[in-house]
């Protein structure tokens, strides 16, 4: 006996509005909340510069000229409307990481793909059976 095609329920207008609002809330909460909870950090740090002269910040004459053309100055304070380059030069990434965190992150990504592919395969078989008229 051929399996009857699945007939989905018709979603009400209110149900559609609810799903739409849920999606909007999920998008905004899940993507935006980490920014405000400080979870979406960029891993940047500020190094201490003992000497903020151009030479002390390891900037040669060409570099110095380009910084000045771009509106920056040496030192730690703004001068004549020019911002201090030391703030940019002192900003560095901190690449120290824990192997446990790396392994946990890798596990999350791999598990996510594994589960999504596995679940999709189950659903796909149902789609193919119905589309190509498999019988039970």
């Amino acid at each position, binding site marked *: 006996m051929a399996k009857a*095609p*699945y007939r*989905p*329920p018709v979603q009400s207008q209110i*149900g*559609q509005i609810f*799903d*739409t609002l*849920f*999606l*909007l809330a*999920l*998008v*905004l909460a*899940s*993507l*935006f909340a980490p*920014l405000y909870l400080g*979870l*979406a*950090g*960029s*891993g*940047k740090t500020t190094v201490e510069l003992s000497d903020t002269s151009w030479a002390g910040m390891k900037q*040669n*004459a*060409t*570099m110095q000229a*380009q*910084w000045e*053309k*771009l509106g*920056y100055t040496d030192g730690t304070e703004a001068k004549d409307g020019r911002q201090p380059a030391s703030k*940019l*030069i002192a*900003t560095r*990434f*901190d*690449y120290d*990481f824990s192997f446990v*965190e*790396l392994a946990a*992150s890798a596990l999350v*990504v791999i598990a*996510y*793909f594994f*589960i*999504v*592919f596995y*679940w*999709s*395969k*189950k*659903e*796909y078989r*149902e*789609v*193919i059976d119905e*589309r*190509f008229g498999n019988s039970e």
Partner: protein
Amino acid sequence: MTAETSPANGERISLLRVLGPGHVWALGVGIVLVGEYMGWNFAVGKGGAIAALIACWFAGLLYTCVAMIDSEVTSTVAAAGGQYAQAKHIVGPLMAFNVGLYLVFAYTMLEAANAITLGHLVQTVGAMAGFENTNDKPFIVLTIMFLAWLNYRGVYTTLTFSLVITAFAFVSICVLFFAVQPWSDVYIKHDQLLTGLPYGWLGVLAALHFGMWFYLGIEGTTQAAEEVRSPARALPLGTMTGIITLLIAATMTWYICSGLMPWEYLGQSVTPLFDAARLTNSTLLMVLLFIGTIFSALASANCCINDASRAWFSMGRDHYLPQVFGAVHPKYRTPYRSIVFLVPVALVFAYFAPLDRVITFSILSGLLEYTFMAFSVILFRRKWPLGTIKRGYVHPFHPLPAVMLLVLCAATYFAVFLGYGTQLIAMMVFYIVASLWFALHRYKYVRRGEQFAMPWPKPVGY
């Protein structure tokens, strides 16, 4: 399955088939070219200028694999939604739902990043012109609202507009490249400005994160599948010429910027090509690159709205999302409800979030999509071996591009982890919650057999 029933009047209305290969090129390059004008240079911040160049090449390799794989699958599965439609036919519903979300968020976040860049540039130039109190926020809102309106009114005008301004932005980079006389050391001073690898080889790997920005979005060409006159010819042609254009533009951009600016500045600049023009002391070049940056940001945001709304529309049409989103405008023949729904999402991010975080959201969604593509093409060849269905294009050396894509994706996940690890996990949490919502609630509204719309034989193994 190009037709769609409009809930408003019960008529069957389809998207219009009016686009040619030039529009496909504009859609792909238009989204991405802004990546040369901003964003790629954060790779310099993560690893130094030389690391950014290596990242540019490796990301170029990654995207060449993406373009090759995409051209084969898309020339066969020519449906709005692009990779979403591919996932639906090749992998299964839950994967398709996730791929649809990757597309929507990669493009919507990119749209937000474009609006931020445009606002920042107007603010910077306003200050240079003596208007110290110029506020970027109104320009951000206006950009998103204007482009959403343009998209609402029709695809042909939207993408023709993109074609013109993308071509202008590309020519601007070429003009700047020749103006700085790369054959001499009048402007370009790599010998004085390149400082090796400040973070060592770990920095090279880390730079791969933003190296993707040189090309991110080229795969968006597939979104036009139901609106091009000849998908089997126009999609591979537009995509492959697009990636070639981007490889040339990326190399020129790196050469110009790294030869003009100290890496510490370049790595944190919001508009590096405009800054490069400033360093030439040429008002003409500054104006040209100002317009080029504005145009590239507009073109990219414009194409992003186009692509994100098509993906959202396709999911609505299949009832993966509320079916109200599957409606086509009876007069303009555009997925107008999807276009309108995504406007507040883009606005909120563009208004409140910092640029590098917004870009990372976009990159992560793209990265998840490319990982899917590597598996997908292997399944595609396995389920429908060559000769069993008509393909518009067959990519060579299979499965080498898929394996290379996977390896490069793995390296890029690690690159994102270096510095943005918490953001990676936050994004995964979002996709896991959304998947649960789909599998446990939403999927009950989806017809089963009708999801498979291609006139193909039964897949091998089923």
